[in-house]
């Protein structure tokens, strides 16, 4: 006769939950505490480098949603076309990063910000003034290792919880 | 490694058992006559040495002139596979026999093809739209369906 099924399995489970009562919770209290995001984060903004952009619209072609609209002057100035309008509708954008990947002149970067929610859909359209690259701008290292090196290391839950055996 | 049986090799044997069933072969597939699809599939499923007991996937492709329905068959026992193709030239009211009786795995996939491609599978127990609603006009997976 096998002595089984009299509640030992439940008791084992109860021990696990009891053990967790004395462990630290893993919750992060978001607005007060923030974690460092990945160095390659694809945040919901893009950063556009006016000096480097030649107006070739490769990014617009790579975008499968058609969220990038770009209008350049008809005549080139030197070796580039002056960009008159450069807009990304982040309401449509799915942050796939294809535009950044294909840019042959390294003029478009993902932004590292992720708090870009707006109250109106129209406000989601990022114009070239908003996106313009400055040295202070917090730029993600997606496809740009030199930017990645400047960002802080990502906080990993893996390292945050250290439970001794 | 799953061995892909070459179409020619298989067709040679099949032609003797069910004459006139195969109208074309390629390196990995056999193109089957519409009428003899059921008997040929039953043969493939039960014949010792072949025993294609597992129907991986059914697809339909719209080539404008005809629809092609593609069956990916695998044998779990012998670990080999073959591709079966059937063509359907009628664009207005395309229909081919259903394989639900042999492989029940075909049930939802045939229903989906009917929904998106408009090919009617004769003998299917529940031939109605599956992902789109009843009353939807047209079949969106056809090449001539205008998406917007």
């Amino acid at each position, binding site marked *: *006769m096998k002595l*089984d099924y009299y*509640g030992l399995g439940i008791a084992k489970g*109860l021990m696990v*939950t009891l053990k*967790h009562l004395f462990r630290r919770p893993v919750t992060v209290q978001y607005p007060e505490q923030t974690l460092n995001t990945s160095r390659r984060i694809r945040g919901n903004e893009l950063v556009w480098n006016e000096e480097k952009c030649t107006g070739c619209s490769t990014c617009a072609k790579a975008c499968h949603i058609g969220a990038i609209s770009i209008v350049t002057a008809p005549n080139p100035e030197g070796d580039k076309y002056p960009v008159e309008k450069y807009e990304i509708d982040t309401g449509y954008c799915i942050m796939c990063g294809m535009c950044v990947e294909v840019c042959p002149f390294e003029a478009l970067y993902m932004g590292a910000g992720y708090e870009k929610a707006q109250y109106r859909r129209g406000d989601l359209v990022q114009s070239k003034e908003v996106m313009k690259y400055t040295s202070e701008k917090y730029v993600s290292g997606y496809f740009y290792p030199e930017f990645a090196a400047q960002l802080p290391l990502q906080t990993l839950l893996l390292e945050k919880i250290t439970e001794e055996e | 490694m799953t061995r892909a049986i070459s179409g020619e090799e298989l067709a040679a044997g099949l032609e003797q058992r069910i004459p006139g069933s195969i109208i074309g072969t390629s390196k990995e597939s056999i193109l089957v006559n519409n009428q003899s699809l059921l008997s040929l599939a039953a043969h493939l499923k039960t014949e010792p040495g072949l025993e294609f007991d597992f129907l991986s996937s059914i697809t339909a492709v719209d080539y404008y002139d005809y629809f092609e329905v593609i069956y990916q068959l695998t044998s779990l026992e012998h670990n080999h596979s073959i591709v079966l193709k059937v063509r359907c030239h009628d664009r207005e009211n395309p229909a081919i026999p259903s394989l639900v009786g042999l492989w029940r795995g075909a049930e939802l996939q045939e229903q989906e093809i009917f929904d998106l491609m408009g090919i009617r599978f004769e003998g299917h127990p529940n031939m109605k739209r599956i992902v789109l609603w009843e009353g939807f006009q047209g079949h969106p997976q056809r090449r001539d369906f205008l998406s917007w």
Partner: protein
Amino acid sequence: MVTFDLVFPAWQFKGLPPDWPGGFWWHFIVFSIIILAFVLTLVIMFIWFERRTLGRMQARMGPNRVGPFGLLQAMADAIKVMLKEDIVPNGADKLVHLLAPLVAFVPVLMVFAVMPFQDGAALVNLNIGVLYVMAVSSISTLGIFMAGWGSNNKYTLISAMRDVASVVSYEIPVVLSLAGIVLLAGSLSLNDIVRSQAQSVPFVLLQPLGFIVFFLGGMAEINRSPFDLLEADSEIVAGFHTEYSGMKFALFYLAEYAEALVLSTLVATFFLGGWGGPLLPPWLWLIVKSWAVFFVLVWIRATVPRVRIDQLMTFSWKFLFPLALLNLVVTAVEVVAWPEALPVLLIPVNIAVGAVLVILLSRNFKPGGSQVEA
């Protein structure tokens, strides 16, 4: 010291002198207020405690935004719930739908009428207290059934049916398990039961089997996990209160936790010595013991999955019911054969008998179920 007695009666209050003008009514009013305050405060504390403890057991924090440690969370929820729209579904039986939360909540409150907070300090010291508790507490089922029926929803109906089935089955083992206590204490009055425990040992040691049956059966009756079939959120959405919102929902929520409070205080009273205990004032002992019982309820809820309706029935009829009967027989034999036996001797005997019976009866357990031929 009359005023002090009136304000904090539970400290020293033993009932006003019978010659006091309108003595009974004063007693009635004072204890009604005490019971209301006791139930409402403790229920709110229990809600907070359950959410915090569950949170910590599940590696998260639980409510911690409103007030210190989230203590005011229940208040905030109450305010939110009161401001919500009261929705009555189309086709609902309006009167039944309206009455259901009240019928579910009021009996739970009524149970406390016989609960002794201290020696003799109860609204009424009924000499049939145990019967009263059992009778009154099962009325809530009616409220739940009314909610299920009156909501005009299939999920609520299934939930109501499940509840009636489970309460009808579990009432029997629960009452039988209390019979052992009554035999040992020689009285049906709750106060006498506590007093006899204060004289010997808590009955959990003398009646381990009765304790198990009462605790598990009680959990099933108040629909705590793992017997929370009637609000099984993964199966029937929210069960009987699917169609309730606003204040009516709040009453159901309150009733649910008040029932948990009833179970904890009853277990504390019947098995853990009630108000008896050294050092601390007696009413605090009652709260501490109830709290400990409630912690076990929360702990179990955090761990186990839910049983199925037929397994719920099987558990009652094939496990708890025979156990309760055997327990009654064993206790009766002990009381008749060795009326003067010392607890020291009876404790190991009873625990051994209990363990053997539990293990033997667990042979009935069969994993899985049977498919019904369609």
